[in-house]
């Protein structure tokens, strides 16, 4: 193990380490703690300039959060985010299960070329797609609709998901597939009954990753939507910024609400999330 386990050091070092650890975390999370602090302070504090001090009239508890929920378009934005994120997640994962199977199991001419096309497409800057995709979405009558965003996200995320799935399927024991073929099972049934059950960990990992990526997307949200009826929460919060300028207590409560779903997803599915992100970090 590197560095040397802390137990092998002297008493002094051990105590110091255990003391520095929480301090370091505190410093690391200061920006976040600051928002949480803001979100439970009363609004007057910000007009009187008492930004960081103890609130004069006591803490607000969840009052600011309630205001955000009842007096702004926040619920609508959150709902839009859900409507955009969940179908994208299922769509991209379903498509990439198939592409991953096709590219990971079969050997045919052009296999690597198609695989590289998906990989490269996943890395291109968004801007090279922006004008044509916006135009296409508009032509289909889907500009400023949630469906327009979903369709694009599914297509784009399929690139990343294919990279992931194909490498995962590659690592599965081939003997299983060979055995199934000898039994005369059709290719579709091999996919459905043999390979798919083995892909559960990969599917779980991709679901959490895609959920987070899409929930946090901002660029496409502002390119393809513009009204509160279809904008997800990341874009909505900037509109919010206009509505509640300098009302930091509400803005910070709103930001926290917007951040909760991916954060909850991360903490609930931590193992899968990290397995997904660090795929390839180990040989």
């Amino acid at each position, binding site marked *: 193990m590197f560095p040397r386990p802390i137990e092998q050091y002297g008493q002094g070092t051990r105590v110091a380490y255990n003391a520095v650890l929480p301090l370091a975390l505190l410093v690391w999370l200061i920006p976040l703690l600051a928002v949480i602090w803001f979100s439970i302070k009363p609004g007057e504090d910000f007009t009187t300039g008492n930004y960081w001090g103890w609130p004069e009239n006591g803490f607000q508890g969840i009052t600011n959060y309630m205001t955000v929920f009842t007096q702004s378009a926040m619920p609508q934005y959150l709902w839009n985010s859900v409507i955009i994120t969940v179908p994208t997640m299922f769509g991209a994962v379903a498509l990439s299960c198939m592409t991953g199977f096709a590219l990971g199991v079969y050997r045919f001419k052009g296999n690597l070329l198609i695989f590289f096309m998906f990989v490269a497409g996943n890395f291109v800057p968004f801007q090279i797609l922006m004008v044509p995709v916006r135009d296409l979405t508009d032509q289909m009558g889907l500009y400023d609709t949630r469906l327009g965003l979903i369709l694009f996200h599914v297509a784009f995320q399929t690139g990343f998901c294919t990279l992931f799935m194909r490498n995962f399927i590659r690592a599965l024991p081939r003997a299983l597939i060979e055995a199934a073929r000898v039994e005369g099972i059709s290719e579709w049934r091999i996919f459905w009954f043999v390979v798919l059950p083995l892909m559960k960990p990969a599917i779980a990992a991709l679901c959490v990753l895609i959920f987070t990526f899409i929930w946090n997307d*901002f660029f496409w949200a502002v390119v393809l939507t513009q009204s509160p009826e279809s904008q997800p929460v990341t874009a909505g919060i900037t509109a919010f910024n206009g509505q509640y300028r300098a009302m930091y207590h509400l803005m910070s409560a709103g930001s926290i609400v917007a951040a909760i779903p991916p954060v909850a997803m991360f903490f609930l599915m931590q193992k899968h999330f990290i397995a997904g992100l660090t795929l390839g970090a180990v040989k």
Partner: protein
Amino acid sequence: MASVTTDTPIHSNDPAPRAKISQQAIAPWLFLLPAFIFFAVYVIIPIFQSFYISAYEWNGLYSPEYRAVAGSEMTDLECTELGNRAARTEGCEPTGENVWTGEYVGFENYRNLWSDPFFWTSLKNNVIWLLLYFLAIPGGLFISLFLNQKVFGMRLYKSLFFFPFVLSQVVVGLVFSWFYLPNEGLLNEVLSWFGGPRTNILGSNDYATYGIIAAGLWPQTAYCMILYLTGLNAVDPEQIEAARLDGAKGPKMLWYVVLPQLWPATFIAIVVTVIGALRSFDLITIMTNGGPGFYNTSVLAFYMYDVALSEFGFRMGYGSAIAVILFLIMMVYIAGFLWKMWRDEKG
């Protein structure tokens, strides 16, 4: 498709049914088809379209097409050439179709870019982003070394250190812009304890870009940290022990024994950091919207968006030209990545 090699060996004394072979030949294409159509329509074709549009001047609109009214003195061609004026011209009528209004300008957009100071500011900022973003890699390595211990509650510590990566960049941007507030921000509050001058970081031409990059480094460092933590988990303990017996420790051990084993993690950290740096858009939009002044904190990704969907009229052609430049820069890295993948596949 003729030269498909199937995985199931086909013995001559055990002839596989023809249907079986062709099924194995067709199956991959059927599995690929839906995703391929999606990907082609939304990713592959738009790349080429952007190249095409970059040779045009286009405001993003379509205009109605006109034709000559039967029996009038006008011809279809004349009506078309009149453009929108045909609506007021006797003898022309709309066909009901809309036509693209792009106007061919050749390399004009690229020539204009060359003499556009904002383009160069954006490019310069892109370079700064790229260089400084690399700090996330040693930063992440440092934190991961610090956290790679087995003490009580370490799992929770690790997830909390990773936390910033899960937040959307929009939230990170908002949080940091409050942190930097000229008078009330926490940063200035702390600086004033030490007698430092109060600075308006995001309002300053000199510091704004660095302030935004610092915000971006927060989640990016967390990402690199998690990559290295996973990598450190897989470091071969026997090699470490052997090196320790040979008297290696501290930085020497890190450099000669541990880092080489961490190369896969470092490689991915480089890839995601470069891409993260070149995709920086959200933070700039949220924190400064390109300001202060004209495009002082802009990068190509931001400038492209701002030009193409400008409130003073869309300039899709010019925007596409910027996108093409950004794409070509990114292509260098993509090609490198693919080359490595190709080598790994072969080897």
